[in-house]
């Protein structure tokens, strides 16, 4: 029992634990839609595209979350606009916009040489560095995103399963898509503090993909994704504490292991 309670005497560990649970639930809420709509690539793109927003906010001394959110909104609308105007397929539009945004971030960064140590945190992340302020914003975003997604759940479901009929029903299919992109951006920004940009996509997708393999309805899928994500997060955090490994990457590895387990379980069915 000491093994489990020992780390809890440290405030930073408790905060990290709370953050991991919150973000896992959040990622399950959004990740379900990302996986169902085949948007994994966009998740990856978004994690890069919020970069200039974060750099810009840092340089201006503003809130990183707000900066990233602005970048996420611009990216979501930019992907939509480029796709429509050019007639190119969406993957081309995504490729153009996200690499452009990322490059913008790199150029902005090169104007601020003192940013380099913070950059490593941005790329790798560190759940043990989570502040009480971060926790509150994570809680706020989780409640907000959860409420939004619940509010438009039936519309999103139809638009994801059958976009043509959704269009015939009169649903703003493109608007729903943009909303989802913006929420993905928001979630990526939050997970950045924990696992960094490069690994944030994994947190968003892996648990939801595992849940999809096992669940038969949307509600069960989201619930299971939240459960698997939380288990993976908590186990990963403890493992990293005892093995003295990078916490973000350890969490991602545990999630990957859970996914593989789900895959073998389903095969046996």
């Amino acid at each position: 029992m000491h093994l489990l309670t020992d780390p809890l005497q440290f405030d930073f560990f408790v905060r990290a634990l709370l953050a991991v649970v919150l973000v896992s639930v959040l990622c399950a809420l959004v990740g379900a839609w990302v996986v169902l709509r085949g948007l994994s690539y966009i998740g990856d793109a978004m994690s890069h595209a919020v970069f200039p927003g974060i750099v810009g906010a840092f340089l201006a001394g503003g809130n990183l979350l707000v900066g990233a959110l602005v970048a996420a909104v611009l990216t979501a609308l930019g992907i939509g606009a480029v796709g429509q105007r050019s007639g190119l397929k969406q993957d081309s539009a995504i490729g153009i916009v996200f690499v452009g945004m990322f490059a913008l971030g790199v150029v902005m960064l090169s104007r601020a040489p003192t940013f380099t140590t913070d950059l490593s945190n941005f790329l790798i992340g560190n759940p043990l560095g989570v502040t009480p302020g971060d926790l509150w914003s994570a809680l706020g975003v989780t409640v907000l995103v959860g409420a939004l997604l619940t509010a438009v759940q039936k519309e999103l479901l139809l638009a994801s399963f059958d976009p043509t009929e959704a269009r015939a029903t009169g649903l703003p299919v493109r608007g729903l898509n943009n909303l989802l992109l913006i929420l993905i951006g928001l979630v990526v920004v939050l997970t950045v503090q924990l696992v960094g940009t490069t690994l944030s996509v994994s947190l968003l997708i892996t648990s939801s993909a595992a849940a999809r393999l096992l669940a038969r309805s949307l509600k069960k899928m989201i619930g299971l994704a939240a459960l698997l994500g939380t288990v993976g997060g908590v186990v990963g955090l403890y493992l990293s504490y005892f093995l003295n490994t990078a916490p973000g990457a350890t969490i991602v590895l545990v999630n990957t292991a859970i996914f593989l387990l789900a895959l073998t379980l389903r095969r046996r069915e």
Partner: protein
Amino acid sequence: MPGAGRGQELVPSSFLIPPSQYQLPARYAARMLGVENLTVRYGTHLALEDATVQFAPGTFSAVIGPNGAGKSTLLKTLVGLNAPTAGEVVFTEGGSARDDVAYVPQQQTLDWAFPVTVWDVAMMGRTGRVGWLRWPGRTDRERVADALRQTGVYKLRGRHIGALSGGQRQRVLLARMLARDARVLLLDEPLTGVDAATQEQLMALLRAQADAGRAVVMVTHDLEQARRWCDHLVLVNRRVVADGTPAEVYTPHNIEATFSSSHLGHTHAEA
């Protein structure tokens, strides 16, 4: 050319439904939706050229043609999914008619591994009626249950859709359409991947929907089924080759012009 080629029917006359059903009830008096001089291009590909067709309430229409003839393009343009390159989509009962169109896609375009049950899919048909920020109520549940009973899949309502046969999947999609309670029903190849017994039931169900006053439009390449059940045939091969009652349209000449290897549509015949 009405009535031409009676002696060269491709379908035994015993399959034919009573001639009374071939009449077009108030077809041009109460036009509901249609396209006028519609041309649709995808990039350089010409999918549909200068098509003018109307679909009326109380009529079961079939849009028939070979692969690549622009049948699905026509439906998608009616729904508003494709923008016309030229020409326009016409709704005679006001601009809001668009949300009164139910669309049933080709089965194989949907992801049947999607984590939803039979009930969930049928309930999707209520999405527009329930409205934003609201949850389905008792009326919605009754409608869905009713639609599932009509299509004979009520007992399967708790099943995951991946566990269904082709015929059962089509029944679920029709249940969603019925739950929608729309005035215009558009179906893309509803007979594909469906067993013969189910085909009969689906056709009878669609016929009944038309008789109840809805405009039913089905895209198909099954001429025989269309001729047996529909009272309005539109032969399409990039252009509208023929348009009218089965008696008017179903001639060897028109069928040749529609299904001949040529996709150029140069044999444009006025119906």
